[in-house]
């Protein structure tokens, strides 16, 4: 018989008597125990630079007579900038799988909704625009 359980001698344990205060950065099955990563100012500075270059690129591209390719290029540059913001400024690159999955599922759902609406509008008046 072990000594009586009180609030003073009890280490926090789970059902299998594992100490849950022990922090294991390699633990990826319990994402809430993933090691917290501090993004350095150098990384933020580099991303700031990338965003500035992207801004100038999108202005530059809009000046070029590229016909129907102007829009896809503008969207591609904007998406690239957004990905850099999400991954680094918003820390998703260093986040748990739960957050990564949540973010990607959200953007994917948005993409599907836009595409379904577009298909509807464009096929109803096929050839009449």
């Amino acid at each position, binding site marked *: 018989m072990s000594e009586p359980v009180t*609030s003073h001698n009890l280490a926090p344990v789970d059902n299998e008597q594992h100490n*849950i205060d022990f922090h294991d950065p390699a633990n990826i099955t319990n994402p*809430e125990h993933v090691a917290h990563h501090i993004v350095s100012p150098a990384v933020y500075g580099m991303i*700031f630079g990338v965003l500035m270059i992207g801004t100038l690129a999108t202005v530059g591209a809009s000046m070029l007579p590229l016909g129907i390719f102007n829009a896809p290029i*503008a969207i591609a540059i*904007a998406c690239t900038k957004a990905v850099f913001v999400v991954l680094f*400024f918003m820390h998703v690159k260093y986040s748990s799988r739960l*957050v990564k999955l*949540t973010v990607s599922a959200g953007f994917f759902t948005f993409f599907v909704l836009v595409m379904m609406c577009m298909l509807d509008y464009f096929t109803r008046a096929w050839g009449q625009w």
Partner: protein
Amino acid sequence: MSIASTITHPPEPEIHASHDVHEHPFYQKHHFETAEQQREAASFGMWLFLLTEIMFFGGLFFAYLLYRNWYYDAFVAASNSISMPLGLINTVVLISSSFTMAMGVWSAEVRNKKFLEWSLIATIVLGFVFLGIKSVEYAQKFEEHHVPGASFDIRDFVHPPADSKEKPLTVDMANHTQIYFSLYFAMTGVHALHMIIGIAILFVLLVKARTGLYTTGYVQPIENFGLYWHFVDIVWIFLFPFLYLINRH
């Protein structure tokens, strides 16, 4: 044990293994096992909110894409009537404010109170600069009678000024520039509303940061606000080419 003796001698309360037994930081709520778990839950919740924001702005973006395809010439002419340099400056200002906010999150992480305060102040100032430039742009549109409604004037689009490179639009197409301007004011207006709300929250965060609350390891509120501010930045990253740069050559 009889019922009577249970009443007179109640058993020691059952203590959950991970609850109020071990030391934990002051900001950890009792229903979380660890501060990390709480932080993860907070980020997850914030992202769920931001996904609803994507859907909110998404409807406007979809309407924009559709009408842009239907009335392309009207959208080009109307887009070229707004000031690209002001839009570019505002993009630089907003990305800079995102950078200062990111630095604010960093200084909260490394518990640098002074730097956190200055980062938040810089973010507030840049936010006001953005809104100031935006209001100058809005004022121009009102002066030019380019605001949809009773006082809207299609003259600039049907008879472009001699020094402009724009080709004249038919009256019907020129009237469709109102759709562009409706979307312009709706999208930039809702975006600006998000910034006004954000600046209000920034003031609250600044007051609390001055007490040292967020440089104790309690980074969550700063980090979650950072997520919101960066999201507003992302919306603008799309608005700028969509509204200002449809066809500038």
